[in-house]
């Protein structure tokens, strides 16, 4: 099934494939990274990078080292995806990550704000008496232990992209440079990757800024779907579309069941 934003794309790839390809290009050979639960796009990005240009990329989540999934799954944390891997460890590895750190991690959120803070806990009310209670998050330590992270979401709407999250599940740049430094944070989100566009963060203000729009998406489309005052630079690129080679690897090897096509 095609989503409405897919239909606007004239090219033969889906927004999810664009997101996976963009992220894969930003991962470097020799790095160590992980993705959380429900992380089909991040896992696709890591597997594609490993095939294409980063054979020494290490994928080490909370309990497993270098998995070889035969296909993508909506969950990437059970034996369907992880049955074949180089080492199977346990949740003790949470503390190992605290010690050695990661190069990159991926976050998602019910709400994402202009400073890249993400919320998975509640919308409206308070944490003790929420109007809407979300799933929460397993690991919130990556803001401290991962040298950069990506926000990757399949939803880009005003409801998701809000001026200020109702609850900071995992911090981005908090309320800007002052609060960020006061909290003792050193790392933060590099890109926010959505079905419509790529955003980065302006170095001076640490606020989210449009970097590129995907083929068939206009700057106005992105502004209309964003619930805060997104920084718009003078020049906005079109996100470089997937190459034929990237799409072939993605569809033939990484995602043969077409999870990113649906």
């Amino acid at each position, binding site marked *: 099934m095609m989503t409405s934003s897919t239909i606007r794309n004239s090219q033969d790839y889906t927004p999810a494939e664009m997101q996976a390809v963009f992220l894969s290009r930003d991962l470097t050979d020799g790095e160590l990274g992980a993705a959380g*639960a*429900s992380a089909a796009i991040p896992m696709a990005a890591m597997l594609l990078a490993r095939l294409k240009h980063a054979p020494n990329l290490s994928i080490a989540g*909370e*309990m*497993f080292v270098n998995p070889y999934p*035969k296909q993508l799954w*909506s*969950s990437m*944390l*059970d*034996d*369907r995806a*992880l*049955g*074949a*891997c180089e080492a*199977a460890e*346990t*949740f*003790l590895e*949470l*503390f190992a990550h*605290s010690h050695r750190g990661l190069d990159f991690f991926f976050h998602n959120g019910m709400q994402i704000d202009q400073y890249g803070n993400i919320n*998975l*806990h509640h919308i409206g009310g308070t*944490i*003790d*008496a*929420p*109007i*809407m*209670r*979300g*799933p*929460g*998050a*397993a*690991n*919130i*330590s990556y*803001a*401290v*232990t991962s040298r950069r992270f990506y926000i990757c979401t399949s939803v880009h709407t005003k409801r998701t992209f809000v001026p200020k999250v109702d*609850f*900071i*599940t*995992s*911090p981005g740049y*908090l309320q800007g440079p002052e609060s*960020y430094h006061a*909290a*003792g*944070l050193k790392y933060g989100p590099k890109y926010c990757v959505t079905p419509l566009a790529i955003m980065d963060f302006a170095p001076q203000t640490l606020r989210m800024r449009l970097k590129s729009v995907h083929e068939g998406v206009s700057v106005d489309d992105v502004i209309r779907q964003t619930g805060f005052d997104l920084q718009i630079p003078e020049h906005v690129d079109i996100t470089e579309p997937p190459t034929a080679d990237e799409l072939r690897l993605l569809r033939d090897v990484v995602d043969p069941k077409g999870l990113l096509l649906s």
Partner: protein
Amino acid sequence: MSITTGRKTKRISFNEIGTFLTNTIDDGELLAIGGLFKQGRPLALVREVIRQRLKALKIISSPGSGFDVDLLIAAGCVAETFLPAVTLETQMCPSFRRAVEAGTITAHCVDALSVVGGFLAAANGVPFQPVAAWKGSDVIKHNPLIKEITCPFTGEKLFATKAIRPKLALLHAQEADEFGNIRHLSTMTYADQLIARSADTVLVSVDRIVPSEDIISRPRETSIPCIYVDAVVEIPFGAHPTGSFPNYSIDEDHIDAYAACADAARKGAPDGDRDLQAYIKQHVIAPTDQESYLASVGGTIRMDELVAEAQAL
């Protein structure tokens, strides 16, 4: 005479689970559940918790929970949760969400390091585990398991996460001998080993009991030794509808059907609550043995499909 002659078996029968539960945990106490999300969850044991009408339980688990916790909440067994993530992954947990929003349960705001660190501290017999990797998150402000401390060596500010000692832990694995030596054949074992070392009492369901000689021939593969296990029970497909790899895969259709039912109840659909209670009656209360449970969820035909799905991986 064999070396195990005279040794007491820890094997109990399916019919003895109920009594074991009521002898080891009371209403209002802390229950730990093994596995993660849709794998290795001891669902047959959880259904017995519901049949025994245990109430006001506090629930803890490895950092990711879903179906079983939602079912316990729908059945009215839960007062408080200490669960970092509660989700069916492709959708939210309807009964959890409904109960928290209605204020009928308390969902404590905890994360993976506080829960895993708490199990670790209990397993090590110390009152807390120090944690350095928390900054900037609102979870820290609301987490009842943690307190700020000062490092006695460097003066650095960090956190202590309190030891977690569940009254009872329910786990599921693929194999064990009758003395309670547990062997996971699954690749992922999550926090099962830690939970076993942290709880007062540990009950493990396994897909099959194997001879003790078999355990002794491959000791490196014993994932939880008998000294941490109080009772073991053989329950074929005891993790259903979650998966027990490599033996059988996840019954996503069953979980989706439950979720549709629970979500209709959450949204206040006409007959929503009646249908949810009918699910509990049909699949939890009425089947008092595993054979009748399996018959209620598709029987041999469905189980064969889940076995084939796991074998094809």
